């Protein structure tokens, strides 16, 4: 396998992008990454697009061809692939773009993720997001996406004594980080009471425990490391790239307080990268709900099982004063969560950090980062380990 590096990264603002359609968002993200990489259209061999549900949001499938076309790349007839894995669509797209370069078939690959969600009503979003769970045996019986994570949260509270306040601290931390990110959907700090007093969505998860409905797109440009080194000053190397799966239905898993797919994807990625968890300087974790960040911290081995709540409350994962900042971008919670884009947006943040251009969010001296992207209630998980050159 060839080593693969990232030579460009870009993103749109996340939030309600009122004037922009999915094709606008996809093009803007791709162009930002291409400009950042200082490459030309004719350098591009292939495009990968992560998108969850354009078929249902805007009655448009065939999204990779759409983005290729409107990016002006159809005249070169490049290869294009759309990947879908619910909210892990971005991470799975990146893994496949990584393989495409590692294989030796393609030298310059653009991989982007995009989702346009705010055209749909809240109720429609509830329904579309529920399609990531088991439609026949979960959704049919009344399971919504927040409900599945709420049941994990309650099990975690029962098993480990995790508190609502500890979960809420995840939201407080990530909003504090988001306040420093000019592309975040929410750029305002919030306090603990705001989270605790918010209306309930699925008990014990309130509105501020949930990531928002967002529009947005993010993109990366990949090259074989050797070529990247001659092309770019500071490429970021993909040291580990893995996908792991689990049962689609939460009910079918032995443990409700942990995601086996996160454990496996994380271990495989660290092994591939020849690193241990202690080598990681910062991480972007999939905090679709506050409880999800706590479970990810435990499953990846940043803390022991049951200890994440206290560790977050102590500030161990804060940008300011923490040992290993988590979700410096604001995470899904504050940066926003346009599903198909999220797995790519996490890596964009890691690239900016490892290249020392994260501005007010910069983690000093960071050379190794980990990103973690979850689809559904944990049926698909991708982990990437990234290293500065």
């Amino acid at each position, binding site marked *: 396998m060839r080593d693969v590096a990232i030579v460009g990264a870009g993103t749109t603002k996340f939030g309600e992008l009122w004037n922009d359609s999915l094709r606008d968002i996809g093009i803007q993200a791709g162009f930002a990454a291409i400009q950042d990489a200082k490459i030309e259209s004719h350098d591009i061999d292939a495009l990968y697009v992560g998108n969850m549900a354009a078929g249902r949001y805007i009655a448009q499938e065939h999204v990779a061809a759409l983005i290729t076309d409107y990016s002006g790349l159809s005249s070169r007839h490049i290869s294009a692939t759309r990947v879908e894995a619910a909210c892990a669509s971005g991470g799975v797209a990146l893994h496949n773009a990584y393989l495409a370069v590692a294989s030796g078939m393609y030298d310059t690959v653009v991989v982007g993720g995009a989702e346009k969600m705010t055209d749909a009503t809240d109720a429609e979003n509830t329904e579309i997001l529920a399609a990531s769970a088991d439609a026949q045996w979960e959704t049919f019986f009344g399971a919504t996406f927040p409900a599945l994570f709420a*049941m994990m949260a309650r099990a975690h509270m*029962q098993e480990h004594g995790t508190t609502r306040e500890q979960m809420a601290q995840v939201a407080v931390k990530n909003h504090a980080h988001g306040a420093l990110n000019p592309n975040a959907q929410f750029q305002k700090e919030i306090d603990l009471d705001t989270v605790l007093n918010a209306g309930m969505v699925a008990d*014990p998860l309130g509105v501020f425990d949930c990531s928002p409905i967002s529009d947005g797109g993010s993109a990366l440009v990949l090259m074989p490391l050797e070529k990247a080194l001659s092309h770019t000053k500071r490429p970021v190397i993909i040291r580990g790239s893995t996908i792991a799966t689990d049962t689609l239905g939460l009910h079918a898993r032995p443990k409700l307080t942990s995601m086996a797919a996160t454990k496996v994807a994380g271990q495989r990625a660290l092994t591939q990268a020849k690193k241990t968890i202690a080598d990681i300087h910062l991480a972007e974790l999939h905090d679709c709900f506050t409880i999800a960040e706590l479970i990810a911290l435990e499953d990846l081995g940043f803390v022991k099982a049951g200890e994440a709540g206290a560790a977050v409350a102590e500030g161990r994962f804060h940008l300011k004063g923490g040992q290993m900042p988590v979700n410096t971008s604001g995470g899904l919670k504050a940066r926003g969560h346009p599903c198909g884009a999220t797995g790519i947006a996490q890596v964009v943040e890691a690239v900016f950090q490892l290249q020392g251009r994260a501005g007010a969010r910069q983690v000093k001296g960071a050379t190794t980062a980990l990103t973690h992207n979850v689809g559904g209630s944990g049926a698909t998980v991708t982990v990437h380990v990234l290293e500065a050159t």
Partner: protein
Amino acid sequence: MVQTEGIRYWRDMRARYNLIGRRCGKCSRVYFPARSICLDCHRHSIGKMDPYKLQGRGTVSTFTIVHDGDPRFGVQVPYILALIQMEEGPRMTAQLVDIDPPQVTIGMRVHTVFRKIGTVHTEGVIHYGYKFAPDSMPHLRA
């Protein structure tokens, strides 16, 4: 406008009405919903996954009170959704009824009751299936 939501559920109707899962003929592990391949025995289980009726008794593994429901089924919010650990082994996703939210506890014993699950509003099809009610409580509603 695609309105297929009502169509596919009949395939599972018998399983849903009668709690018919499968048992692996090799290792005896019970599955609900039905699987044609055992997660432990893989190919050795193929052709040996026999229908198996659950008795409908179990305990609450975890639960939530849902305030923002899926709009398709016209369910009144809030409602209680739970994962039920069945005596035979599998865990099921279902609503809890005949109990008020503050009374629900993890570990409480429950049993199935046959109820309306919801209506697919574009087609007016009414779906039926299992919910769970507490063992210790009187049945407050029919």
